[in-house]
């Protein structure tokens, strides 16, 4: 049976160049980077080389790069750390209603500490409006956090416009760019952000490594306390193999973006058009334009997402869904609900995220195989029956 991985927005396979570099470090460079002897010095050098690669990839200065344990940790360090460090200046924070939980739940934690948070609404395509953002600003706003691109529906946010306003008003601006890096250009000087989070395992690097970009002169507080690593902002002996792996991964991702992203966008469009034209009562979630090149999020209405996902997996297509049963709660994805989708549409959502291994042949296979899967589940669905008889859905 075929085995097609269509969940690159969840995580990516580690590429060969990364594995090779990491294995070499694991084998040869066990010295602690903080040791000044001949075993420690090469480890330090490897970290600083990786730091330069990351900095170059997002047009930052190497001194602005902090290695952390994950994208989630980068988000938490930026949000919790900077809000707490700047508490005296104000207690109002702004973010969006469609952020990843790494951001949303950090803000929820700050609410319990007495901060006030505005969660910006989104339109039907998952985009915030700059006008809404301006209206939400207060004299005591100290931090704004907007994702560069959404992980579920791929919507690209107007981060440069938000950044320009924040910079002018001297408000800290954090960008969760975990999904964007390596897919679309990410330039911290263009965005005018003070913080930016990225992750290794979304760009064919290892899991367990993330980066927080922190603009020079900006203040934050560490989440942990210990040694002086990463300018005391992330104490703990550096994960040298992962740092080296991330450096290799981001350098290659950015170098290949110019050819890989248009290739993926073409395949994505073929997939979307193919599914929407083959299966009735389907819809694209998120925008056509201004969307990550590898993300397709389609609702096959009147069937449930987990059942879809399971059947797809049996046919060799591994993807994800925003239905309640897969979100781990009683409600469908907060992103799809914030976009104003009905429960029926949100429950039938399927996220197919493409990557290096995806071929045109794979896309043809998916388009061919999805129809009978939808037909089979719809034949079982009382909701589909109601729809066809013109009765109320449920």
């Amino acid at each position, binding site marked *: 049976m075929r085995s097609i991985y269509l969940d690159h927005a969840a995580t990516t396979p580690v590429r060969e160049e990364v594995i090779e570099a990491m294995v070499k470090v694991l084998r040869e460079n066990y010295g602690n980077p903080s040791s000044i002897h001949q075993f420690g010095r090469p480890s330090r050098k490897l970290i600083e080389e990786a730091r330069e690669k990351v900095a170059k990839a997002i047009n930052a200065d190497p001194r602005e790069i902090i290695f952390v344990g994950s994208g989630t940790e980068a988000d938490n360090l930026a949000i919790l750390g900077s809000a707490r460090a700047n508490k005296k200046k104000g207690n109002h924070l702004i973010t969006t209603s469609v952020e990843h939980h790494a951001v949303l739940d950090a803000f929820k934690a700050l609410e319990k500490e007495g901060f006030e948070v505005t969660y910006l609404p989104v339109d039907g395509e998952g985009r915030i409006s700059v006008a809404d953002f301006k209206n939400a600003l207060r004299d005591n706003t100290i931090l704004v956090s907007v994702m560069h691109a959404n992980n579920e529906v791929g919507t690209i946010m107007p981060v440069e416009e938000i950044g320009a306003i924040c910079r002018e008003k001297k408000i800290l601006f954090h960008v969760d760019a975990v999904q964007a890096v390596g897919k679309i250009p990410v330039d911290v000087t263009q965005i005018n952000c003070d913080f930016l989070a990225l992750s290794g395992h979304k760009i064919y690097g290892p899991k367990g490594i993330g980066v927080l970009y922190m603009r020079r002169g900006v203040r934050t507080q560490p989440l942990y306390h210990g040694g002086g690593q990463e300018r005391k902002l992330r104490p703990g002996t550096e994960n040298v193999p992962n740092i080296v792996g991330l450096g290799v991964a981001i350098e290659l991702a950015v170098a290949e973006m110019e050819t890989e992203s248009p290739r993926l966008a073409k395949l994505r469009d073929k997939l979307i058009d193919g599914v929407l034209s083959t299966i009735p009562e389907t819809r694209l979630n998120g925008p056509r334009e201004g969307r990550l090149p590898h993300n397709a999020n389609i609702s096959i209405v009147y069937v*449930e997402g987990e*059942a879809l996902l*399971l059947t797809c997996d049996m046919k060799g297509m591994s993807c994800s869904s925003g239905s309640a049963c897969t979100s781990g709660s009683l*409600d469908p994805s907060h992103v799809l609900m914030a976009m104003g989708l009905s429960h029926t549409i949100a429950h039938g959502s399927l996220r197919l995220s493409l990557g290096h291994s995806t071929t045109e042949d794979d896309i043809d296979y998916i388009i061919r195989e999805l129809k009978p899967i939808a037909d089979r589940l719809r034949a079982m669905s*009382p909701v589909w029956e109601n729809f066809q008889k013109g009765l109320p859905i449920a």
Partner: protein
Amino acid sequence: MYTDKVLDHFTNPRNVGEIEDASGVGEVGNMKCGDIMKMYLKINDESNVIEDVTFKTFGCGAAIATSSMSTEMIKGKSIDEALSLTNKAIADALDGLPPVKMHCSVLAEEALKAALLDYQKKSGKNLGLNDDDFEDWDAE
């Protein structure tokens, strides 16, 4: 996360469909949480035996598997036997469900009881079922 039996009943569900002249039909669940089950019973009025049972379900793998298993467990059985079917028995017959999916087995039991209540109303027999028990079951 799912047992082989759950996957088997999900992949090859038994007794899918509708019964046109059903003796009782029950529908439970709601679109908000994403599970709707509809069960059809064909009952022999004299022998009180469930001669045929079918279902249609909108829901996850566990919802479809518990629907399928429950129909298999009551087909050919008496009304009394069907009334004593518990959600736990359905889950056990599937070699268990993940804790977060236990509510699917509850829904399967409720769909059956709702169909039997409908039969009680249509046949005039007293099965000991009350409308009140079903208050929360309406689709939203």
